[in-house]
């Protein structure tokens, strides 16, 4: 098995007629993922690469009741409306690619998802891939086959580019992945490291997990707490970036909204200390990760 994306995944794409939506639609389909329908208000009746487009989510669900995942690739000003629509229609997994969503909208979307018992991965998520099974989102681009390979290491990453880079480093060293999840680098995210560790704990295929974190926020510390409490018992290797950014004046904005440090909160040191105390192995560069996994005896080899 894998987590989030399995053989049963059936996808709806909200924003399917847009540039990223239409591109991802084709990519997902080429990778063997079942993309049943798309939604763009006002474009109902059209098709994108043979995928039918509807005006609303409920219309799409009426015609394709099997849909269990929505991939959202709409502009930031329309994102809350799109997420709300997916939540109201009780789609259990909502993966949000959209970047630069106002934080107030993210907060409302996350609260609404919680109320309705559905899950958001993102915003600013590159997507989710279970190598050899399927993918949701832009993760892996046109052809994930060279970079991602099937195996038993899970990856959770704040950065989309680094999800891909770390997977490639593992693949190059003969270590495959169970599921790779881009959780996004925003301040507020629908699914945190800790949330996903709970899923990876239950997943038999996954023997170890790599966390790619960065300065800012408390998601890495939260993961450390979960691991320390014993609720995640498999091996974890973590890499934390942002030492350089800490040398910049406080409050300096970088590309990831969440990568911002005020005072000691969310600092590199705080994260490393917490993770080490939980028994997590820290990689100093991404290239060390395969070796550290192999030392733990948890890789494929």
């Amino acid at each position: 098995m894998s987590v989030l994306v399995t053989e049963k995944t059936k996808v709806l794409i909200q924003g399917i007629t847009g540039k990223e939506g239409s591109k991802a639609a084709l990519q997902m389909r080429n990778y063997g993922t079942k993309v049943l329908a798309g939604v763009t208000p006002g474009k109902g009746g059209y098709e994108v690469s043979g995928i039918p487009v509807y005006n609303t989510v409920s219309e799409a669900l009426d015609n394709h009741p099997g849909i269990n995942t929505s991939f959202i690739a709409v502009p930031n000003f329309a994102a809350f409306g799109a997420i709300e629509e997916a939540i109201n229609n009780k789609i259990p997994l909502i993966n949000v690619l959209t970047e630069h969503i106002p934080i107030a909208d993210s907060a409302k979307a996350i609260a609404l998802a919680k109320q309705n018992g559905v899950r958001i991965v993102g915003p600013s998520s590159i997507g989710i891939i279970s190598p050899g099974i399927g993918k949701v989102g832009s993760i892996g681009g046109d052809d994930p086959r060279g970079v991602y390979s099937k195996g038993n290491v899970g990856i959770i990453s704040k950065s989309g580019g680094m999800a891909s880079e770390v997977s490639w480093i593992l693949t190059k060293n003969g270590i495959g992945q169970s599921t790779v999840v881009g959780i996004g680098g925003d301040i507020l995210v629908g699914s945190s490291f800790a949330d996903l560790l709970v899923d990876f704990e239950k997943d038999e295929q996954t023997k170890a997990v790599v966390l790619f974190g960065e300065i800012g926020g408390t998601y890495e510390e939260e993961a450390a707490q979960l691991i320390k409490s014993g609720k995640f018992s498999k091996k974890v290797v973590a890499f934390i970036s942002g030492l350089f950014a800490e040398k910049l004046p406080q409050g300096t904005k970088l590309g990831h909204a969440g990568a911002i440090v005020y005072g000691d909160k969310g600092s590199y040191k705080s994260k490393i200390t917490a993770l080490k105390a939980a028994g997590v192995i820290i990689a100093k560069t991404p290239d060390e990760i395969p070796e550290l996994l192999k030392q733990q005896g948890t890789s494929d080899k």
Partner: protein
Amino acid sequence: MQLFEFEGKQLFKSCGINVPQSQLLESADQEVTLKLPLVLKAQVLSGKRAQAGGILVVEKMEDLRFKIEELLSKTINNEKVEKVLVEQMVDVGKEYYLSFSYSTATRGPVLTFGKGGTGVEEKGAESFPVDPLNMTLPSTIVEHYVQFTDTITELWEVFTKYDLELAEINPLVVSTTSVIPSISEESSISNGKIATVRQGGPRNDKRVYALDAKVILDDDADFRREIKFPQRNLFGRPPTEAEIEARKIDEGDHRGTAGSVYWDLRDGDIAVIAAGGGGSIVNMDALVTFGGRAANYTEHSGNPPREKLKKLTKIVLGKPGLKGCWFVGGTANFTDIYETLMGFVEGLREIKPKPAYPIVIRRGGPRDQEAFEELKRVGRKEGFDFHIFGRETPMTSTAKIMVELAYGVK
């Protein structure tokens, strides 16, 4: 973006929060019409303003002018004082701290309340998670601090109406000279619902004042915020020409980003064009570790078109005294490597004098092989000192290569 105190107070006032009467001065020649005693406050963004001498009290009229001049000649934590806020002094009883912000721990807004002044966290300020779909006041506050419920409700309005990341009042004070008789407490206790507090009819307690304002705007909501604020100095200096030019690249063009995040760094001599919000930071960490001095920080992501990279390259390499250029990124998911690298080449061709320094390129992703073939051809034909690496070479190891080539050391 952080606001100056006087800007933050404008937002506070617009939602009914009491602030002292004030005037904003840019010169000591402007007439002050407020009555003594007065407080003069340097308008700077850095914290610890009071400790740095940025706040002065004026009790005698003859002191006013030179104290204003004193503040306007000051530099506080590298920030030149350009404006002074003159405020009517308020007789302060107790000081409190009040803020709304977002917490990664509760993944939503939080209200923080406690004793005010400096070192709020040590004084045990308490944070209460707030439901963004239906804000209700925490019962502790309704029960024990009823006189602040209006201000809290108003600050929530400021926080949500203007799309803020932080709305902070420190100190929030109760003036000892009451302006309006205090409200009757029982009428305000009403299940903590905002609407009910309002409908309950008690007038705002006019003795409660916000003496300071710290406000951070959510830049991602700029598109829908009706009130606009001018760009401010960061790093204690005005934005450089390159920073201003770089920001313009993304304006009105949502296809990927290139230039929205661009900072000139002091004393650097290696130009950096990094890709990806996460990878860029990883690579900068590596460059610093190997002793490289970055001339700038910039990242591009989300498949920006060729023109954007061309413009960005011209800005990044437009600096004098460069010893190297590092174009670096991980293995892209969907950014077209051919397009972005060709944009780089087009920008590079326009740099005068023609760069003779080493240019290290490490990239992977869609169409990377095609891009490398073309780069090799361009390098040979046009005489650029390209050092090209693909996904088989660890990204961070090219930081070392860059440093060695640029500084001629091993």
